[in-house]
């Protein structure tokens, strides 16, 4: 589904990603872990097409297409979803209107008919249960005045509505208490299908107790320095990251 080869990216003059290679197949869950400033969020943003990052080398192939050549909205239409670390506030725009517009744009791009507000409400009623959110949430302005936990749940709600093929969760666990963490993780797990894949970017092993990864990669200094199975996360929890920082870069899994 996703093949990243020797990806380099800058912010301004500073190189953040220094040659990332990673292959993600349908049905898999990959966790990207690593210390602060290692480039985890940059990788997530580059995959989604944030204009603030400049790709200076390498390729990303998504379902046979050149992902880096696609506009962010085209990536969304093709099924790439990024759950933001810091969800953005859009004052004055209701959550329902925002999500319906997004839903219909993705449908239009796939040659499907748009749904009207009434039918959309039915869809939302189902999706809200998944993240244990109240219908009142739909009438509030997008992320405005939301608590940290509400913002993260709102991201997963959008994911549930848009049903992406490749979901990238950027530190979705940060700032969540244990109940919210469980709700968010349950939502993500229920959305998993054999034909979809998930990349979970996280700082802590905690989230991975709920969303169990098939592969764990450690990012440090803009490179993947170690890859392994889910047990690697536990090892990291016990030993920290320092022991890895001097090891030579591993080949991405």
């Amino acid at each position, binding site marked *: 589904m996703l093949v990243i080869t020797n990806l380099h990216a800058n912010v301004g003059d500073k190189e953040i990603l220094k040659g990332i290679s990673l292959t993600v197949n349908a049905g898999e869950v990959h966790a990207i872990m690593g210390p602060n400033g290692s480039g985890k969020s940059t990788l997530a943003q580059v995959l989604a097409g944030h204009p603030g990052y400049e790709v200076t080398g390498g390729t990303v192939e998504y379902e046979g297409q050149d992902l880096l050549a696609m506009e962010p*909205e085209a990536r*969304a239409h093709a099924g790439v979803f990024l759950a933001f670390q810091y969800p953005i506030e859009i*004052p*004055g725009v209701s959550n329902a209107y925002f999500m319906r517009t997004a839903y219909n744009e993705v449908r239009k791009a796939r040659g499907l008919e748009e749904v009207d507000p009434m039918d959309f409400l039915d869809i939302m009623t189902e999706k809200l249960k998944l993240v244990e959110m109240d219908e009142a949430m739909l009438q509030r302005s997008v992320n405005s005045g939301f608590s940290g936990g509400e913002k993260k749940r709102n991201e997963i709600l959008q994911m549930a509505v848009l049903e992406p093929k490749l979901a990238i969760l950027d530190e979705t666990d940060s700032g969540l208490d244990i109940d919210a963490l469980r709700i968010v993780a349950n939502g993500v797990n229920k959305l998993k299908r054999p034909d979809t894949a998930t990349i979970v970017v996280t700082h802590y092993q905690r989230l991975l107790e709920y969303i169990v990864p098939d592969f764990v990669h450690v990012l440090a200094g803009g490179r993947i320095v170690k890859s392994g199975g889910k047990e690697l996360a536990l090892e990291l929890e016990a030993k920290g990251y320092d022991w890895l920082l001097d090891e030579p870069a591993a080949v991405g899994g």
Partner: protein
Amino acid sequence: MSSAIDQLVSKEYQYGFSTDIAADTIPPGLNEDVVRLISAKKGEPPFLLEWRLKAFRRWQQMTEPHWSNVTYPAIDYQAVSYYSAPRTAKPLGSLDALDPKIRETYNKLGIPLNEQKLLAGVAVDAVFDSVSVGTTYKEELKKHGIIFCSFGEAVREHPDLIEKYLGSVVPYSDNFFAALNSAVFSDGSFVYIPKGVRCPMELSTYFRINAADTGQFERTLIVADEGSYVSYLEGCTAPKRSTNQLHAAVVEIVALDNATVKYSTVQNWYAGDEQGVGGIYNFVTKRGKAFTNSKISWTQVETGSAITWKYPSVILQGDNSTGEFYSVAVVNNMQQADTGTKMIHIGRNTKSNIVSKGISAGKGQNSYRGQVKVMPRAENARNYTQCDSMLIGNACGAHTFPYIEAQNNTATIEHEASTSKIGEDQIFYLKQRGMSAEQAVSMIVSGFCREVFKELPMEFALEAQQLLGITLEGSVG
């Protein structure tokens, strides 16, 4: 801010066509004879000619105001034609007799002057260049005793009402542009709602400038008698022309005791091109006088014009009267807007509420200028002002000039202001959810304007939102 918010392209103005029609246009220039000629062409009674002449003489002694935050080359008032009317064999004012070309023009603008096709519940008075060419639903309104007609017709049919109320809110000596308008105004709309009547439909005037090198100087007078209610909407467009055209209108509203008047404007005059060539100079005086327990509410969506200079105001004359001003002003490319309101609290327990949303894109300059004045007798006056600016890109400007003056220490006056910038991150967020950059901007901006849009009659709220999208189209690449 990087690439995405740099590129500025203007979208084609879709109302920029002109209609080729024989017109009775007087030669450019302004003197007393021209004023007399206009009055004679309209067959006006002597009191009105006298009033025009007084205004003209006053205007000659005045100088054009330059205190606003806009710049433009000097206007040659002798190069403007002050009267242009479509030439037609039949008398104007009857819809059946309307020239097919004019009817076609309004159809193209989406304003069919055919009662069956009209939006249900909206009566329209269409003003083409200087004259009203037709008013719909007149008979229906007549049943309620409501007068809704062109200004010229009102002068002929109801001279007593005109004589009583004309200039009672905006005197001819008020300001330079109001004096000019008072001297040469050609037509406009007149509304009278009788005592205790709730007008059963929206009233609307659609202004269209067609002829080149003419000015449009219309006058609207709305009188809401005691305990009545009316909601009124005006819309405006003009052809694309490379020269600037002058539009100096006056709107007067009288809300007698316990009356409510809601006045909404969707202004979309031609704004000029990306380089700032052409476009309408929109110098307008709008004011209402609110008597005891009455309410006057202005809502405006200003998207067009090269220059906008207008301050819809309320004189809160009577006790317990309320004035409201809800405004969205958008400038893109080289547009300049200096707009806001004046709330003059004279009566006791008077209230005013101001919500202004300014959006600047391209090299546009947007100024909010608002005055809140509490007179000595205005016990317990209250004002709340909220003034928000949004910037799109790095080359535009937003300015706020509040003037607050309280002469009574029981007054409560609040002023809140904010400035925000549409960020790359907001746009990216919406793009990541599948929207185009333009959809993203349009969504962010309409969210920003929601408090104002919700004040518009429903049919027009959608139109205003779309218009905003079009005006800002291309403002983000």
